[in-house]
Each structure stands twice: as structure tokens, then as C-alpha cells.
């Protein structure tokens, strides 16, 4: 990817949006790469967490929002915990994911984005995470209908999956809360 640098790029609204939402500074980062060294999922990323932090600093919106990294981050918080400069790396990753969704950028790891969306769908309907509902919704989103069928059946046999959602009456309260947020912010 070609990197364009100019004052406009570095001081773009994108940088303020991500850092404002993460409530974190990124200019403290001195690229020690401790975050990259300790990240358990760095091997699946296209850019290391340290590279993403640098790209955010330089306003490289397309690179950050189009990266695998923001979706592969497992939010285990090893990086933020170990960062000697107190950069909130996970919060920056979280904020970048939200900005990508708001901007309608196709997630580089679609199934990771589908998980969050499906979870919100079941919580909106049932007030709690309804596991079978989540799995069904996820299968529709990823079109991977046969994944883990055997595992699911064993879990069902062992009484680990309930057919009916628990506490579904709470869905009404969650919908009220989510609707208020939607009215205020335009979208959830």
C-alpha cells in the first residue's frame, strides 16, 4: 500500500475520531514493539499492533481500517498491560473497528465482524446471549452451515445447549435501551 504523508493526512479527523473514542494518546508510542512481541495472535495479522499504532499516528486511515489486524485482535489486553508508555492499544483497536463499521468498510476478517453483529442481534431479541440463536445467525452470515456440527451435537447431548432462550422477557428492556441510543447516535 502506498503511504501518503502530508499535514492534512496526519491531522485528519480520522485520527481524532479513533483516539477520542479510545480516550488514549498514541504519540507516546516510541515503537519498542513490546505489544507486537507479546501478542498471541500477531502471527495471523497483516500488520503488527506496533505498526498499526504507527499508522494511526500518521493518519493512514485506509491501511488501518482495511487491515486484518483490527479484526484479528483478540482483546486479550496483553499489549495494553505491558505498554511502557500507557498507550491503550486494545481500546484503539476497538475504536478502529467501530469507525470501520460506521464507514461501511468491508471487514478484512468478515467472520469476526459477523460474530459481534450476530451477538447484538440475539441480545436485542432475547436480552441475553442465546447461544443457539447466535450460532444460527452466524451460520446465515458466514454461509458456513456445516462448521462444528458434530461438536454442537455433542454439546447438545451433554445438556450444554438450551433450546429455548433464557430470560427472553428482558429483550424488551434491551430494545428500549438500544432504540434510545440509536435515536441519539443515528445507528447502533
Amino acid at each position, binding site marked *: 500500500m502506498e503511504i501518503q504523508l502530508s499535514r492534512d493526512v496526519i491531522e485528519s479527523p480520522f485520527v481524532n475520531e479513533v483516539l477520542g473514542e479510545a480516550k488514549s494518546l498514541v504519540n507516546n508510542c516510541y515503537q519498542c514493539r513490546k505489544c507486537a512481541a507479546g501478542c498471541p495472535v500477531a502471527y495471523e495479522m497483516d500488520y503488527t499492533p506496533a505498526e498499526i499504532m504507527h499508522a494511526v499516528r500518521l493518519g493512514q486511515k485506509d491501511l488501518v481500517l482495511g487491515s486484518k489486524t483490527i479484526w484479528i485482535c483478540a482483546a486479550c489486553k496483553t499489549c495494553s498491560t505491558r505498554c511502557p508508555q500507557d498507550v491503550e492499544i486494545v481500546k484503539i483497536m476497538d475504536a478502529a473497528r467501530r469507525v470501520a463499521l460506521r464507514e461501511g468498510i468491508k471487514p478484512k476478517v468478515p467472520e469476526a465482524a459477523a460474530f459481534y453483529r450476530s451477538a447484538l442481534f440475539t441480545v436485542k431479541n432475547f436480552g441475553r446471549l442465546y447461544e443457539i440463536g447466535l450460532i444460527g445467525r452466524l451460520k446465515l452470515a458466514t454461509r458456513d452451515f456445516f462448521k462444528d456440527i458434530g461438536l454442537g451435537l455433542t454439546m447438545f447431548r451433554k445438556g450444554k445447549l438450551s433450546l429455548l432462550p433464557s430470560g427472553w422477557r428482558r429483550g424488551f428492556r434491551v430494545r428500549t*435501551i438500544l432504540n434510545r*441510543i440509536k435515536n441519539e447516535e443515528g445507528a447502533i
Partner: protein
Amino acid sequence: MRYHYYPGCSLHGTAKEYDDSLRSVCKALGVELAEVEGWICCGTSSRISMSPTVGAALPLENLMLVEQAGGGDVLVPCPACLNRFKSVQHDLEEDSALKEKLERTLGRAYEGRVEARHPLDVLVDLVGSDEMRPKLVRSLNGLRVASYYGCVLVRPPETMGYDDYEYPMVMDRLVRTLGGEPIDWSYKTECCGANFALTRTDIVRKLSCDIMVNARDEGAEIICTCCQMCQANLDTRKREIEQEFGVELDLPIVYYSQLIGLAVGLDPGTLGFERHFVDPRPVLREKGIL
């Protein structure tokens, strides 16, 4: 002793044996658990949406329910829920504009008279106390246990309040009290890939494999966990991991609540061992615990 109790979604589903064993153990130790009336999802798995507010409003609604029911300590067995609760409390303390906004959305005020705690922290002190010693009727007979804490119970330390976030010892101390032998190992707080349990299972298999291989190599006979996502990932993916990586792992993954249940003499049939994919009972029998 009476605590509010927020089981969280998975303890009503895939981690039923965690809920059952925790409730039985608390009953046996004289701890009363009052389930929070009308609780909703904590917001962890839906925290990434277009809105930054969703992931804060859902946990705060639950904290408000606890406050409405009298406030005080609420026991939260799922580390992800616990982390969400503590994170939103932390954010509210630092950001009064956010607090105002959320109170407006949820339609009531929050005074902050709630403390979310993991049951492990409460039980380790209780089980270790002199008055409870007579209740420990069955020893773990030197069972070699790898205590596995996972990510979000200990991180970030300023929110979760763990001093020893790289090498916690709470569960190890508990194991020792119960007559087991805690082992030293390197993956206590490594990530199992919980986020990807249903999607990128290749990542789950790789991370869980590394964790179990290290525990096995350090001589563990069993892994004890305090997180139902860690339990599920390690336990249910074992067979696939063995095939993919050509390793042999006969490590059962149990909850601390099940081990306490054994120690206080509860009927093993009520502790849910049969729900695990890797049956812990053979090794427990071999050690003369069952």
C-alpha cells in the same frame, strides 16, 4: 453471608456445570447467592458495533439493577462479564459526561454502591479460614494442578485490581489448601482465543494447544480454570488439536468450584463432571479422590 449473583449468559447454557457446582459449593459453605432480578447480557460480545455507547450501557444497566436491590458485592463468575462491569465503573469515575449520558439513556441515576467480584476471590479466603477447615473432608491427595486464569480476570491490572497480573497465585493457593499440588508453568494468563470460539477456530486450536502442551510438559495432571470460555475452548477442541498438531493431551479441564465441591464432600454426581468432553473422573479415581 449473602451476595448478589450475576451468572451471565453462558452459565445458563454451555457452562451449566460451572453454575451448578458454584451454587452447591456456596450452599455448603453457608454463602447465600441472590440472583440479580431481570439481569441482561453484560455487553461483552456486542461491544463492537457502530455505537461506542452500547458496550457501556448494557453493563451499567446490570449494575443499576444490583444497586436497586440494595447494592454491595455482586459475584460474577464469568471473567468477561466481570471485566465489562469493572471497566464501565472505571470509565464512569473518570468521565462525568459519559456518566450523565448513560444515566439519561437508562433513565435512572447510578451512585456506584456496587462492587463486582469474582467468586474465586471470595471463596479462596473462605476455604482457607480456620472455621471452614473442618468442612474440608476430602483431600485432593497431591493432584498436580495447573491453575489457568486466562486474560481478562487479571488484565488490565488497574481495572481488575490484580497486583500479580503476569503470575497470579490466588487459585494456586486454593489448590494447595484443598490438598492438591499447584505446578509452576508459563501459560497461566495466556489467551485461549475466546473471541474466536465460533469463527476462527484455527486460532483457538493453536492457542489452546500451546497452553495445554506447556501444562502437560510441566507435569500437570489436570487444568483448573475460573473462566467458562477457557474451559470450553480447551476441553471441546482437544480432539481436533491432537489430530492437527500430532500431540497427545489427556488433560481434563475443571472449574475451581468443582474442586472445592469435591473437597467439601459434595456428591461428585452433582458437580457436572459428565458434561465435560474430557472426563476428569478417571484421573480423580486414580488419585483416590473419588
